[in-house]
């Protein structure tokens, strides 16, 4: 075969399928072959199902033929593989949420987004690796072993949606789904050199998604470019009666508002007012990251954007606020894992129900999940509620008000996504606060319910750095315009043509797998 189909963008795949250059079965086979060649080492997937994927692809080919015979085009995702984070339910298939407590669980129904993707004819080959219950910033807290970063196999891909990010970065899938509670889409996107969007709270229905923190969780796309991310958001966004937090807000045609030509895309920057929040250049930020973000801001200014310094004075309180609110909500959400209705279960002889719960939950949850449940239970417990949870909700108001004021002056904010590049396996495992700081620049956005987009903006010491655009509520279209404009401005940059450094090692039988490598590094 002359061209490697996996290297195409999703939109190019859609065109190729319509032209009849290749079929969905061929496209899906190319991706499955790639997963099978590379995933022993990378470990981006918890599971995939070749037979099911090829069956879905065959059906997509029939729909494509049918559409063509009627002179129609069919949905753009028809026949295109999409990887799902393993907390999205798909009927009749496993969903572990990265946890041993859901080992063996079979989803009895489809998530809203699974229904939408299936209706659009997307091919769903399986599920990607993640930190247990989406709690973590490195994917090291998966009960199924960590995922490697393809830019340096000794480093983490970020998290919690690390598998979804890595899979897209190495061409195992053109598109994937993640969830973002404090940065779990944007931070791994930054660390793997991919595009990731956390939509506005309420933009995508969470029916059928394993819950972590219900006032913060949102579902969003990963892709290798901004237009592909827009394509995937289009397919999943919108009101759903089964999630009463999904909002009855119209979903615009995202792709239609993104120009094909680079010049037209870059021209959108003229007159755009962009705020640079000074508090996002946090203490401990790596100089290489800071330099690239400043360069990116200068490029945007040169292209005609009006750059304004912005104060978000309560940013420094974001971390403490988040680590009260998110664990509190998690401790309530995870109370459902009781070993009675589904999942891992231990029944102690003698029949003390408390002993059963203690044993089931004590053996089913991993270290980080236990830590968060403990924090949340403590913050909500008698005598501490006002001091911690209520206080945090009030500070949350202050954080949100900072953003409201900023958006009176500017159209969007531009900031780093992560203060550091990808870190080595084990580097932050012993210090929870160091791990939590990975999300210092992303979690305020969740606290305020805003959309945030991370796009690659260069390499620092050979590792990817992400640029974050933060928008007003429901302004995903603006973020896509900005991300697309930034792509256009940097299209000829040398770093754009550099592939993940360790890509070639992935299909080498001599390369240790991600779990083997992480274990060896812990032992050393």
């Amino acid at each position, binding site marked *: 075969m002359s061209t490697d189909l996996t290297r195409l963008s999703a939109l190019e795949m859609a065109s190729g399928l319509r032209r009849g250059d290749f079929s969905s079965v061929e496209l899906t086979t190319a991706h499955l072959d790639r997963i099978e060649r590379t995933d022993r080492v990378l470990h981006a997937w918890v599971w995939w199902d070749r037979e099911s994927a090829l069956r879905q692809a065959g059906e997509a080919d029939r729909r494509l033929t049918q559409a063509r015979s009627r002179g129609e085009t069919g949905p753009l995702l028809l026949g295109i593989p999409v990887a799902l984070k393993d907390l999205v339910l798909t009927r009749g298939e496993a969903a572990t949420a990265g946890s041993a407590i859901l080992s063996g*669980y*079979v989803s*009895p*129904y489809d998530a809203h987004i699974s229904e939408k993707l299936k209706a659009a004819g997307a091919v769903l080959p399986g599920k990607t690796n993640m930190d247990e219950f989406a709690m973590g910033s490195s994917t090291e807290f998966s009960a199924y072993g960590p995922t490697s970063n393809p830019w340096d196999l000794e480093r983490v891909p970020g998290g919690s949606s690390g598998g979804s990010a890595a899979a897209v970065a190495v061409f195992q899938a053109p598109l994937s789904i993640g969830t973002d509670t404090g940065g779990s889409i944007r931070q791994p996107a930054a660390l793997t050199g991919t595009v990731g969007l956390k939509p*506005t*709270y*309420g933009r995508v229905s969470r029916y059928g998604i394993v819950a972590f923190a219900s*006032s913060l969780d949102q579902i969003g796309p990963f892709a290798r470019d901004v237009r592909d991310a827009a394509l995937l958001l289009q397919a999943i966004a919108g009101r759903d009666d089964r999630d*009463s937090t999904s*909002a009855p807000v119209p979903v615009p045609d995202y792709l239609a508002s993104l120009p094909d030509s680079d010049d037209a895309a870059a021209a959108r920057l003229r007159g755009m007012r962009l705020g640079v929040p000074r508090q996002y250049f946090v203490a401990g930020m790596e100089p290489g990251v800071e330099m690239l973000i400043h360069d990116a801001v200068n490029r945007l200014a040169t292209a005609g954007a009006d750059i304004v310094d912005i104060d978000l004075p*309560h940013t*420094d*309180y974001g*971390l*403490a*606020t988040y*680590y009260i609110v998110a664990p509190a909500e998690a*401790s309530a959400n995870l*109370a459902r894992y009781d070993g*009675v*209705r*589904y*999942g891992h*279960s231990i*029944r102690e002889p003698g*029949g*003390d*129900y*408390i*002993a*059963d719960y*203690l*044993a089931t*939950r*004590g*053996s089913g*949850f991993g*270290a980080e999940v*236990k*830590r968060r*449940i*403990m*924090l949340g*239970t*403590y913050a909500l*417990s008698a005598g501490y509620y006002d001091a*911690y949870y*209520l*206080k*945090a*909700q*009030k*500070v*949350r*108001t*202050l954080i*949100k008000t900072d953003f409201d004021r900023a958006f009176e002056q500017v159209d969007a904010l531009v900031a780093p996504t992560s203060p550091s590049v990808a870190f080595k396996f084990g580097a932050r495992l012993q210090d*929870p606060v160091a791990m939590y700081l990975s999300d210092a620049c992303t979690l305020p956005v969740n*606290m305020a319910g805003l959309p945030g987009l991370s796009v690659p903006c260069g390499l620092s010491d050979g590792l990817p750095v992400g640029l974050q655009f933060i928008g007003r*509520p429901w302004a995903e279209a603006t973020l896509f315009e900005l991300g697309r404009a930034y792509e256009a401005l940097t299209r000829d940059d040398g770093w754009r043509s550099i592939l993940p450094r360790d890509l070639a090692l992935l299909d080498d039988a001599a390369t240790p797998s991600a779990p083997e490598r992480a274990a060896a590094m812990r032992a050393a």
Partner: protein
Amino acid sequence: MANLSRSDVEHVAHLARLGLTDEELARLEGQLNHIVDQYAALTELDTEHIPPTAQTIELENILRDDLTRPSLPRDEILALAPQRSDDYFVVPPILGEHGN
């Protein structure tokens, strides 16, 4: 400085229904104190007149029509049960000598 004692940590673990080993309790005692110390920063802020934010989109009183709809297939749901008896989940006894 936060000051969670070992017995505080054990109490919270019990409230959370988490059976933890001695080693886990010892590690969590240190880690929880370290994390809760970070919360102290919030006391710098005067929030007396600030309303709390529970959610960020202004949706209220979302109601749906009270319609009869099929529920999930009973057999498929019960097939996931760790212990099942006919059409029922088997739960541990909560009344009797262990209940309160």
